[in-house]
Structures are given as C-alpha cells and as structure tokens.
C-alpha cells in the first residue's frame, strides 16, 4: 500500500468518525425531526462523495472476514439489547437504594412492602377472574370459528375470515376506544363484565388462528376414514377431530390466557372503577413513581413467566420423546 | 501451448477439508487437463461435492492448494475465480427472467449493455431458449431450467465449468437427452468440464476421465474403460458395475504372467499376475459377472480357463441378459450374467437347482491392490434378500390367502 493510499484511508476514517459523532450528537442533542433531517443530509453527503463510496465498498471487500461476522455480532448484540433492561430491573429489585444509579446493598424490603400492598392482590384477583373467563369463552368460540373456516369455503367464510383476522392487525387503542364508545352509547356500566367482553373479543382471533394453523397441517383423510368406518359426523368431530387438533386448542388457550393477563391498553379503556386489573395497577404505579416496588413486582412476574415457560418446555420435550 | 501446460492445467495438491472432527476430503492430489470432461464419481458423502465447492471457492481447504492455469487460486474468493458452477438445484434467481439470469454475471462485470445483449442472445440461441427469454424460472420446465443454468455459467467464458449433479432433478428420459446436449455443448465451447455425480452411467458416458472417490479420498483415476476393466480397489470394482470377490493366497508362481491362487474350499485358480505378486501373498480377485460363462455340460476349454462346478441358486431374466446366482462348494456365491445372443427359447434353459459349470478365462480376473470387506455390501444380492421388491407374482398367486396376509404383515413389520 502506498503512502497516498494510507493517507486517503486515514482521511476517510476521520471523516467517518466525524459523521458518526455528528449522528450520535444530533440524536441526543437536538429535537428529533431536526436530528433526523441532519442525519439524512450527512448520509446523503457520504453517498454522494463517490470516491468515498467506492472506498467503502473496497473497505468492505478488503475486510471481508470482519463484515462476514457483522450479522452474528448484530444478532447477539440485539439479544443483549432485549435482555439488558430486564436484567437491570431484576438486579434493582434487590437494591436497597431507591434509584438505579447506586447500589446501597442487598435487600428484600421491596418484596416485603409488596406483600403488604393490598391493591395489588385485589388487582391480581380481578385479572385472574377476567383471564379465566375470557380464555374459556374465547377458546370455545375460536375453535368453532376455526373449524368453520377450515371446513367451509365461500363468501360467508371469506367475510368471517376478515372479521376474525382484522382485530389482529388493528392497533389496540382503536379496539379500546371503539368498545368504550360502544358501551357508552348503549349506556352499559363499565366494570369487570365490560373488561371480560373486551378480552374475549381480542382473544377470540388469536385462538382461531392457533387452531386454524393446526387444522392446516391436519390430514383430512382421517376424517374420511372415520366416516368410512361408519362414524357419524358428530362422533367423528368428538372422537377424531377434537383430539387431533387439541394441541392447537391448548396453545390457543395458553396464548389467550397470557394475552388476557398482560393486556393493558384495551382494559384501560373499558375498565370501570373497581375493575382494576393488574396491568392497570402496574401502570398507575409506574405513573405514580414508586419504582422499587414495581421492580419487585416485575421481577416476581418475570420469574413466574420464566418458570411457566420452563415447565412448558420440559413437558413438551418429554412428550416429544415418548 | 506446451504439453506441460496441458497436463497441469488444473491441479489439486494435497487438498484436505475438515468439518469439525470429520474429514470430508482427505489429501487429494489430482491433475486435470485443459478441455477434458472430468468426472468425480462416488457415493453420497464421499467428498466429491466438497472438492467441487473448494474449486468453486465456496469452501476453503484446511490443507493443500489448488492451482489453475499456473496460478494458485486457493485463497481467491469465489467471485474472482474464472470458474463457474451449474448447481444441482439450478439456483436460478426466481425474481429474474431467463434473460436477466443469463445476463447477471455480465452485468456484475460492468460490460457495456449492447455487448451483454449480444452475448446473451448468442447463448439463448445455443440453448434454443430464444422464445422463453422473458419467462421467469417458475414458468419453464426442468430441462429448460437446466439449460438456462448452463448458459448463465458459460456466458462468462469460464476456464472451468463445474457441474454439481446437474441431472439429478430430471427424470430418466430427459437425463439421457441432457447428457447428449451437454457433450454437444462441450464440443462447442471446448472448455474443461468437471462433472460431479453419483451415477456411474452418467459418468461413464460423458467423461474423458473419471476419479472415483470414497470416504474423502480418491480411489482411482482413469478413463471409463480403465476404471471398469482394471479396478484398483475392491471399492471401485464393486461401485462401478457389479463383481465377484475371491480371497486367497498365492500358492505357486508359474511364470512372469500367471500364478495359482488358493481359495478355501475351491480348486486352485489360475490367475493373471499383472501386479507381479510374490508367493504367499494374500490376494483378492475380482471377476465381473459378464466374464463368466455358464453351461450344463462340462465345457471343452483350454488350460487358461478356470472351471468350477455349482448349483443354480437363482435366475432372473432381464430381457437382453439373464442373471444367475450360483452356489459353489456351499460357501461361495457367484453372480454372473449371460447375454442372449441366440434365440433363447430353443435352448434347454438353465433353471433353479441345476448342476452347472461356471468357467472364465484367467486373464479376465483382476487382482486388487486394496480390499475392504464393507465394499461387498455394494454388490447386488439375489432377489430373495431384497424382499418385496422382486417377489415372483406367479409364486404368490399359488399361495393360499392366509399366507398372503402373513407376507403383508411381515412387510409391515
């Protein structure tokens, strides 16, 4: 490599570093649209400087092994990005200090306070009532819908499919405000019932999709075999169809249950006084700013989730082995 | 160009490739001449595809070097090599038309547009795909995809064209047609083809030379005839065509050319000793099924023939020839074929349990350098052992129903 090339590369490195610095500084220091506009201008400049562009291509070519590792580094970096906040939160729940900036020693005091917190236990009770009823109802409705969608074709089922699918892609806030307006228009008192109705509505679509995906893998000839062996359509449904798609129903129900437990936005709209669910309780705690308490609560919820996933995995693995 | 350059056009020098603990390719040395069709033949997992991928640049050898036209290309990346590949699954870009697929490499090379158009048209004419130029790969047939893939590689005028099981996805009839077309294309462009296949028929019919590979190393390199007639190892003998193995010890060296082989339970066998093996050497003799002759009467032959007596175990009529399995001295089972040169129906047929004489000319047997017992698994076995595939329909028809059920049940198990 000649000195000239080294010189050009050094200049480009400096330029690149400068641009990166400008980008970061802008994102942190200015209002967002301003920063974005400036960043785009910088990037345009970078691309338009064609010698720089070809240099970049050559640079990537020359350092092929490094750039080959880029997707891998990115992936593990993003996984770290996924878990770092959660890990910090768990650590902080044992931090005696009220703020996350300093470590004042290990403590269980937030957990003790948490157990004395009456409202949380009350909210948990409401959440579980809502989740159990919503799961049961949406599982039944969703399974029926999936069987209908799988078995029959035609414009009715097309409309049915749209009706089932659309709630999955509509932002939750629209589902929430729609239901709120609906209940207000009908002068229905907001309470646990309205929350349950709202939960059944969005869980229904998820259950249907879970069962439908199981049905799509399902070998239709075993239905024919059952009918061929003299079973009535009723018997076939109960003795053959339901057992075969049961894993789909189960995973749909599981999904509905966790979604119902976790839902905040829709519940927030349709909950009345006295129907505070756990997510609503957490939200008001976040807003009120009792951070260590939420840390402890979050850690407990995370632990429960992870244990549930672990048990699920172990059960599934054992089932697969036998 | 001199002879030296011809011989050393493409060389693999001590190439090895490890994937973790497994050695996919083990110390391969090969020289390939300019302009020949060279086949890498072997069962799946023998390392032939890995070797090809190293030549294409998709894998880096763990050891050794690859030299193409006098320059070491071991560390040259795939996109800088004058080597192009026809992939097993064609790997045509599904979002581009046939024309765009063929033009892709030229576009990458920043050739002028008119030149690209001209070259692509030329290719389209060669593969007779002019009227399909604007179709997507999903709209054309398997054979057309194949031709497009070849054109896409050839348009770049590579020094070597690599073909990785190019006919595996086609049906039998089309495969034979494409094989013909491939050799026509080779005659037209005259560049080196390296052809990877597990199908000995394909390799035999298209290649100038073949390298038979097994377990990551090369068993033998030679012309198709050399490989077939003079296999060097039991693997080559068993993998290419069918054969019979006899293992014994040299009990007498008659002269410079012949020796006597002692095989347990068999009379002394006269062998052609081209490898100049010494007295007492352990030897494996390979004899191809078609080298045997079979008759009901004792044959009148010269003393250069070996004659064995046995009982016919099985007969399979296959139209142009019949295949016999003959048991000799209870222990040895010989597979042999007889061509139907005369009108067969007039002859007294040889059938099951007949006492027969099996004989062959001593020069037709071939002593092997290397032998491993596992290679016997590659040999064709008599139909009974194969099971349901070749059950004699007539025999089954005679069986009572209950037995038929039994057979089915056994099959299910």
């Amino acid at each position, binding site marked *: 490599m000649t000195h000239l090339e080294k010189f050009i590369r050094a200049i480009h490195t400096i330029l690149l570093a400068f641009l990166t610095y400008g980008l970061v500084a802008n994102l*942190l220091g200015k*209002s*967002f*649209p301003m920063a*974005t506009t400036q960043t785009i201008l910088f990037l345009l400049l970078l691309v338009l400087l064609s010698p720089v562009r070809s240099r970049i291509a050559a640079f990537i070519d020359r350092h092929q092994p490094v750039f*080959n590792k*880029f*997707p891998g580094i*990115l992936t593990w970096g993003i996984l770290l990005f*996924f878990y770092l*906040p*959660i890990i*910090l939160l768990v650590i902080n729940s044992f931090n005696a200090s009220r703020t*996350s*900036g300093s470590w004042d020693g290990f403590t269980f005091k937030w957990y003790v306070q948490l157990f004395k917190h009456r409202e949380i236990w009350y909210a948990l009770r409401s959440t579980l009532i809502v989740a159990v009823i919503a799961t049961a109802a949406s599982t039944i*409705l969703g399974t*029926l819908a999936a069987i*209908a969608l799988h078995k029959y074709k035609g414009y*009715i089922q097309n409309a*049915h499919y749209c*009706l089932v699918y659309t709630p*999955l*892609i*509509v*932002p*939750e*806030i629209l589902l929430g*405000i*729609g239901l709120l*307006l609906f209940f*207000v*228009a009908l002068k229905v008192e907001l309470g646990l019932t309205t929350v349950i109705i709202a939960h059944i*509505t969005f869980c*229904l*679509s998820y259950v249907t999709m879970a069962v439908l995906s199981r049905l799509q893998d399902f070998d239709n000839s075993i239905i024919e075999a059952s009918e061929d062996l003299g079973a009535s*359509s009723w018997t076939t449904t109960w003795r053959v169809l339901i057992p075969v798609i049961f894993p789909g129903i189960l995973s749909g129900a599981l*999904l509905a249950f966790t*979604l119902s437990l*976790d839902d905040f936005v829709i519940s927030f709209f349709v909950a009345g006084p006295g129907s505070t669910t756990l*997510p609503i309780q957490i939200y008001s705690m*976040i807003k009120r700013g009792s*951070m260590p308490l*939420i840390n402890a609560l*979050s850690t407990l919820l*995370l632990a429960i989730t*992870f244990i*549930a*996933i672990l048990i699920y995995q172990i059960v599934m693995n054992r089932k697969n082995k036998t | 160009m001199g002879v030296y350059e011809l011989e050393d056009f493409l060389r693999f020098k001590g190439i090895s490739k490890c994937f973790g603990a497994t050695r996919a390719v083990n110390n391969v040395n090969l020289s390939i001449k300019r302009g020949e069709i060279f086949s890498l033949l072997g069962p799946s997992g023998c390392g032939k595809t890995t070797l090809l991928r190293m030549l294409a*640049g998709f894998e880096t050898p763990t050891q050794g070097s690859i030299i193409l036209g006098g320059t070491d290309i071991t560390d040259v990346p*795939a*996109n800088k090599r004058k*080597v192009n*590949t026809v*992939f*097993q699954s064609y*790997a045509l*870009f599904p*979002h581009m038309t046939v024309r765009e697929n063929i033009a892709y*490499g030229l576009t*990458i090379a920043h050739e002028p547009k008119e030149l690209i158009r001209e070259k692509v048209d030329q290719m389209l004419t060669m593969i007779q795909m002019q009227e399909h130029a604007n179709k997507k790969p999903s709209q054309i047939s398997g054979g057309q995809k194949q031709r497009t893939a070849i054109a896409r590689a050839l348009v770049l005028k590579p020094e070597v064209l690599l073909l990785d099981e190019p006919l595996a996805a086609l049906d039998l009839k089309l495969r034979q047609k494409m094989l013909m077309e491939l050799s026509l294309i080779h005659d037209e462009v005259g560049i080196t083809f390296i052809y990877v296949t597990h199908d000995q028929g394909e390799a035999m019919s298209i290649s100038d030379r073949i390298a038979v590979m097994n377990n990551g190393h090369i068993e033998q390199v030679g012309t198709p005839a050399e490989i077939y007639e003079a296999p060097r190892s039991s693997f080559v003998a068993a993998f290419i065509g069918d054969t019979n193995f006899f293992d014994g010890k040299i009990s007498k060296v008659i002269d410079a050319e012949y020796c006597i082989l002692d095989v347990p339970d068999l009379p002394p066998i006269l062998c052609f000793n081209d490898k100049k093996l010494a007295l007492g050497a352990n030897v494996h003799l390979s004899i191809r099924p078609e080298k045997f002759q079979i008759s009901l009467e004792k044959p009148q032959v010269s003393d250069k023939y070996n004659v064995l007596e046995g009982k016919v175990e099985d007969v399979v009529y296959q139209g142009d020839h019949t295949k016999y399995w003959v048991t000799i001295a209870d222990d040895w089972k010989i597979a042999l074929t007889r061509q139907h040169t005369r009108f067969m129906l007039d002859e007294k047929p040889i059938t099951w349990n007949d006492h027969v004489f099996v004989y062959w000319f001593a020069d037709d047997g071939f002593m092997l350098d290397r032998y491993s017992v596992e290679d016997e698994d590659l040999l064709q076995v008599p139909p009974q052992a194969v099971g349901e595939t070749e059950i004699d329909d007539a025999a089954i028809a005679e069986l009572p129903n209950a037995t038929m059920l039994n057979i089915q049940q056994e099959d299910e198990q």
Partner: protein
Amino acid sequence: MNSTRKKTLREVLLTIPSFVWLTVFFLLPTLIIFAIAFKPASFDGRVADGWTWRTLLSLRNPNYPQIIWRTVWLSLATTVISLAVSIPIAYYIARCAAWKRNLILFLTIIPFWTSFLIRIFAWKAVLHPDGFLKHAMVFLHLIDNDTLLLYRPEAVLIVMIYTELPFAILPIYAAAEKFDFALIEAALDLGASKLKAFFDVFIPGIKAGVVSACLMVLIPSFGSYVVPDVVGGLGSEMIGNVIVARTFTDRNLPAASALASVLILALLIPMLYFLKGKKQGQNEPKPAKEVV
C-alpha cells in the same frame, strides 16, 4: 337435498357464535367510532344527542399537525430501523446450526410472553436521570450532566424499536428459512461480491417476509400509546396519547373518536394490503402476540 340442508345448518351453527360476537363487539364498535365523531359532546363525559359537524372542527387544533407529523416520523423510523436490523439477523439465524437457531428464536420469543408494561418500565430505569446509562454516558463525555435521556422522542424511538423488533424478526426469519442459499452462492459464482449478492438475491428472495414485517411494525406503531406515555414527555406525544387525553382528561369522547377516525383512515390502506396478502398466502407466520 336433506343432507345439503343439514350441511348448511351445520355451517351456520359453527359460524354464528364467533361471527355474531365479532360483529357486535368488533365491527359495530369500529363503525361507532365514525358515528360518534359527528356527535356533540356533553359535559358529563358522555355523548349528547343530535348530530354536528363541529366536532370535526376540533381537528384544527394547532398542536395536531406537529403530533401527527411526529407519529408518522416515529412510526416510519421504528419500521425502517427494525427492518434494517432484522434482515441481517434473519439471515444469520437462517444460516446458524440448528441448536443455535432454536436458542436464538427461543430468546427472541420469550419477550412475547413477558409483560409488555414491565418491559417498557425496565427502560424507564435504564434511561433514568440517575440510572447507569446516564452515568456511563456522562463519564464518556458523550452528554453533559444536564441532558435528559428520558422524556424525549429519541427515548420513545428506542423503546418502540425494543418492543416491535421481535415482530419484524419473526416474519423475516420465516421467509429467510425458506430461502435457498444456493442462490447466494450462484451470485458469488457469477462474480458478485457478498454485499451485492445480499442485495441482488437475498432481499428480493425474502420480500414477502419483509412486507409482512413492515406492516406488522408500522400499524401498531401508529397506534402507540403506552411507550410515549411512559418514556416520552410533553414534547413526544403521539396520536394515541391525544386520543387517551381527550377520552380521560378532557372527557370529550366525540373529539377522541374524531381523532381515532383519522387514525383508522390513515391505517386503512396498509391494513387492506395486509389482509390481501394474508388471503393470498395464508402460510405466512401468524403474529404470536400483538402489542399496542
């Protein structure tokens, strides 16, 4: 004839429960949003009788253009960045050894099962003025001590990417898994550089997954409410926050529904596109869980 009728009856019996439920509790409420936008507000937080155009005039609020602009910007930026990050990740996962692939997918899916609010709250702690990230950045002289990390649009952007990224990764991975990587080798073989092969062959090959991921991130982003509410401040409100503010703070339901109508109309085109895509290729991955 009798059996045909029986079959029809069965179809009706199977279809009616979910059909009626969704019509009453999903379709009707959605239509009501439009209807109430033309109703006057009453002072007790309910909807008064009669019809009016005046509610629509409330959309002329001088703050709205800025908020809508911010919503569009943040949603687009979330989508573009999520896609840009997800495509190399999907490529990497698809090329991994099986055990590694399952591990990464498992780790990507776990956040789906943990509480959405908690994940956002965790970020509040990370970006907290007294949090470790702030200390680290001050120490590195990237920011001075007075800069707030929290309560700004950039914080909203990061957390929105954090919550939406799995929805981008999974559909793109599903497409990448079906991608034939021999095509990349073919491109390299024909002289393309790795980068060129990636753009010429890989990205067109996973186009369906990218489109699906794009919509799956874009649509919920437009309706974001919790993220800007928790980590954003006054200067980083989005349409969702305004809808909630009109509903709960001002108790002006018609104004809220007017805004919600605007949101629906803005999302109608991408949603129809999504539905159309779903009808054509129903083998695409279903959304595992959808949040705001």
